[in-house]
């Protein structure tokens, strides 16, 4: 009965989301909302995918990765090569972006996920920088001057990707694998002792997360006319990290909400980049001091449908040595 009930809620939300997507499509093609807002909408969409994908790695599995812009860059460049150099359709570029980033995630994940906490953070940061420097030095993709890309990102592709990302990550979290990932987050050594193959689950989460970051990269690349290595620096990783942290480490809806909120705020602050960064960093510091669990903690917006352990949240705060 309970399963049926949650399944019903699941289908209702999908139907609602699809209806929303179709309505937006009409609004865009009918030019009812102007170009500026459409562009903002695209940014929000891409950031939602990024936030959700990083949420799976940091929020669910507890692996502190701060090189997410690296996967974004891999996806962006891979898809741009497919569409621009090989002149294949955008759908293939999207898929290739995701797959390339997933492969990169696998290659990076297997060795570096043996590390914990700060070390993993710094290793992924280093990886992100290495990716940037590699693209900077490859002439095939334009080096420092970047690679020109035609705009191919459309609302149906973007919306489809968001929906796919959110559904996959939500269902993964609620599956056996997701539970295992949460146990790794709560206490890795104890999870290991309970017979969970911690490395396996960490790598799985990392690969799925980087796949969607790659998809976001493909959409990001084809939303601009040019992609440059400087777009994928440490600051970009940091932007994505803030979405996850502000929303609440461990809350998918929190990550999505803060991605929406912060994208809107930064769009309005676009003409004052320094002020934007100062506000960002102050928010982050004050947040960590007074509400380290983020806006929603580990809760979801749909929490009031469930009465379980997940509703309590806040487990993050008790286990100070093992988390992160």
């Amino acid at each position, binding site marked *: 009965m309970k399963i049926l009930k949650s399944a019903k809620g699941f289908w209702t939300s999908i139907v609602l989301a699809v209806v929303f997507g179709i309505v937006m499509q009409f609004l865009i093609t009918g030019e009812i909302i102007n170009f500026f807002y459409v562009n903002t909408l695209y940014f929000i969409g891409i950031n939602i995918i990024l936030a959700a994908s990083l949420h799976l790695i940091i929020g669910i599995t507890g692996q502190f990765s701060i090189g997410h812009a690296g996967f974004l860059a891999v996806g962006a460049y891979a898809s741009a090569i497919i569409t621009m150099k090989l002149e294949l359709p955008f759908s293939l570029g999207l898929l290739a972006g995701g797959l390339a980033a997933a492969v990169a995630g696998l290659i990076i994940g297997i060795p570096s996920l043996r*590390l914990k906490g700060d*070390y993993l953070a710094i290793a992924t940061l280093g990886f992100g920088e290495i990716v940037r420097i590699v693209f900077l030095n490859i002439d095939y993709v334009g080096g420092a001057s970047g690679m020109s890309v035609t705009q191919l990102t459309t609302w149906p592709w973007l919306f489809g990707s968001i929906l796919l990302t959110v559904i996959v990550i939500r269902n993964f979290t609620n599956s056996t694998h997701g539970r295992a990932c949460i146990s790794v987050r709560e206490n890795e050594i104890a999870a290991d002792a309970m017979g969970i193959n911690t490395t396996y689950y960490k790598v799985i989460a990392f690969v799925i997360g980087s796949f969607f970051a790659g998809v976001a990269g493909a959409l990001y690349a084809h939303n601009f006319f040019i992609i440059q290595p400087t777009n994928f620096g440490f600051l970009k990783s940091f932007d994505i990290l803030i979405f996850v942290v502000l929303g609440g480490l461990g809350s998918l809806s929190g990550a999505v909400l803060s991605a929406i909120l912060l994208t809107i705020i930064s769009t309005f602050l676009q003409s004052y980049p*320094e002020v934007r960064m100062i506000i960002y960093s102050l928010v982050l*510091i004050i947040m960590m001091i007074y509400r380290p669990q983020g806006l929603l903690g580990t809760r979801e917006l749909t929490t009031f449908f469930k009465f379980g352990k997940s509703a309590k949240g806040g487990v993050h705060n008790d286990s100070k040595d093992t*988390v*992160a």
Partner: protein
Amino acid sequence: MEFVQQLVNGVSLGSIYALIALGYTMVYGIVKLINFAHGDVFMIGAFIGFYSITFLHLNFFLALIISMVFCAIFGVLIERIAYKPLRNATRIAALITAIGVSLLIEYGVIYFRGAQPEAYPSGLVPIKAIEILGVKISGQSLLILGISLSLMVLLQFIVHKTKIGKAMRAVSHDMDAAKLMGINVNNTISATFAIGSALAGAAGVIFGMYYTKIEPLMGIIPGLKAFVAAVLGGIGIIPGAMVGGLLLGVIESLVSALGFSLWRDGVAFVVLILILIFRPSGLFGKNVREKV
């Protein structure tokens, strides 16, 4: 001979990294926090040095000392305001705060003085280049090496011979036990931040002199590389940071000498990842098993 020349350049660059890495390693050893803002303290140090030389017309050594003092105070302020409330929080929260502080300093400086770079005055300390067996060593490299080495010796003296050094070693060994023994943990941590930040300030001034260009975002890459140096030597171990810094500087110069100067920044991170994979405790560290 070209090779030896590069080696000398590498050693003087490496000694700058070593000075910054010492701050990282001391702070990590005592509060287990990667102080991301450390690279920005280094940047502040470079700017203080610059302003004291150009506006106050002080000589180089006075500017160096002023910058060290100011950075020490600045480091303690950062610790008291941002890190102290988080001492019992999760590691992830502390790390995120450190990233936040780092960005706040960078963009705060950009907000107040703009992002344009400044040119460090040249010829501050007239030391002639010396020639040994056909290898020309610039006076500047010698000066940098001299300052760094004397600061490191001073640090070793403080850590091993003074009371505050003893307290620092005790707190880094076991904070709770140190508290029970009557050590003022807060003051000890502040002292650690002060000393580490003063070293970063000195590194900032000599970095400015070496590269002749400073800008508000200059702290990021040297900061990260210094962290790599600290990890390379075994984080939390003071001699490790020195050796790691020197080693990293030499590796970098050799990579440039071989003609891969565009890849130079990447090499540090490759070294980091290799070290983390094969010897996570660093060259000087011991492996510690973790229990539930």
